């Protein structure tokens, strides 16, 4: 073969091209893997490999790869859900993926750490939703409560009994979820206020603790974001005996005394008891 003929043959090899079906599937696979890696530590993608399907026909190999891609695309959906907030269609996927994380962890401390991380995540979601949907002042009022949640988590995570700590952390998480649910379905401040009031009233409909009912009613009467947040917080404590220690709200406000519905005594008195409890 003459030099020129050899070079022509080499140039002709440029026409070799991959199967388009493979090229498209490989692109999807890569994107799904990348999406999954962005929420987890990099996984060894090529545990899946075409050569593992060498006994298959080409059609079967593409079918196997397509199935794998489908699974990976689901991974992509999970990945895409990780930045979602309450109210988003992908938010349930995010919660479900966190449940799966809980299933694959075993140690008590590890479980507590995971619960703590998840609870903080819930609180951060509420904070983000508040800044998206509420006025600066309203968001700041809500943030006071969120800061208390974070403080409580920090306190209980030091507890010696990890399972007890986990329970406390999950209680905080539930409260944050309740706030997130209201904020997630609201479009603005008015929607948030109406949603909060409805949620509180729903809880009060099944609450038999008269003291709590009175305190909640007083907090709602304030008509402010602080009042709503406080009413919400109190309504979640219906079963807690400590609430009974709250002074009757009728005495508040007009006499110049600190309004009992502010709820400070509740937090001050209940938190240390709750932290001390795990010693058993």
């Amino acid at each position, binding site marked *: 073969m003459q030099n*020129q003929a050899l070079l022509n*043959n080499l140039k002709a*090899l440029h026409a070799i091209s991959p199967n388009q079906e493979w090229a498209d599937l490989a*692109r999807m696979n890569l994107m799904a893997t990348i999406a999954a890696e962005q929420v987890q530590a990099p996984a060894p993608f*090529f545990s899946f490999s075409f050569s593992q399907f060498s006994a298959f026909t080409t059609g079967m*190999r593409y079918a196997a790869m397509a199935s794998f891609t489908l699974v990976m695309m689901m991974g992509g959906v999970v990945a895409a859900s990780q930045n979602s907030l309450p109210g988003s269609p992908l938010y349930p996927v995010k919660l479900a993926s966190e449940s799966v994380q809980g299933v694959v962890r075993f140690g008590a401390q590890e479980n507590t750490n995971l619960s703590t991380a998840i609870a903080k995540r819930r609180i951060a979601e509420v904070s983000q939703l508040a800044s998206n949907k509420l006025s600066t002042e309203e968001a700041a009022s809500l943030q006071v409560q969120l800061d208390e949640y974070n403080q409580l988590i920090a306190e209980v995570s030091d507890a010696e009994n990890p399972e007890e700590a986990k329970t406390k952390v999950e209680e905080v998480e539930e409260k944050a979820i309740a706030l997130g649910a209201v904020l997630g379905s609201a479009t603005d401040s008015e929607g948030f206020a109406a949603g909060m009031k409805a949620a509180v009233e729903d809880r009060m409909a099944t609450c038999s603790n008269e003291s709590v009912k009175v305190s909640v009613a007083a907090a709602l009467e304030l008509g402010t974001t602080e009042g709503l947040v406080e009413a919400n917080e109190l309504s979640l404590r219906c079963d807690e005996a400590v609430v009974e220690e709250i002074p009757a709200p009728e005495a508040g406000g007009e006499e110049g005394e600190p309004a009992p519905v502010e709820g400070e005594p509740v937090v001050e008195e209940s938190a240390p008891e709750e932290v001390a409890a795990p010693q058993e």
Partner: protein
Amino acid sequence: MPSFSQNDFIELYDSYHAALYRFLLLRVGRVETAQDLTSETFLKAWRSLSKNGPVAHPQAYLYRIATTTLADHYKKNGREVSVDEEFLASSLDNMAKSATINDFADPVELARVSRALTRLPDDYAVVITLRYIEDLAHGEIAEAMERSEGAVRVLLTRALKALKEELGEV
């Protein structure tokens, strides 16, 4: 540092996946292996580019990753090259029908050249592939192979001589 987005990656994949696949196929001789190695090359490229930002010459960069990916493959599986003859026949048939094939190319000779290429040492096959099949300039090849332009020219001369020997023409 400029960032490298997923859209940049898609563009990179769409621009170079065929060239990378061709390059790898002509080294390993089997379609499935070339497909796996192509995907692996792009995944490695993503991990690096998304962390360190884009590079000036992405094509040369991809060939460098492909070459190391190929070396890893050899370490795990040995250097045995078994050309997928069924693929070669159908591929050459498609090429013969393709408007992109040049008038001077003979399918029988193409098959012979392809087989001979897979038998060449890596450096020789790489430099021939990049220069004559992918039509890269000497400077781009130098960057991809991390050598000087002068070294690439010398290598190319030796590689062509070796290819002719494989073809029984020297």
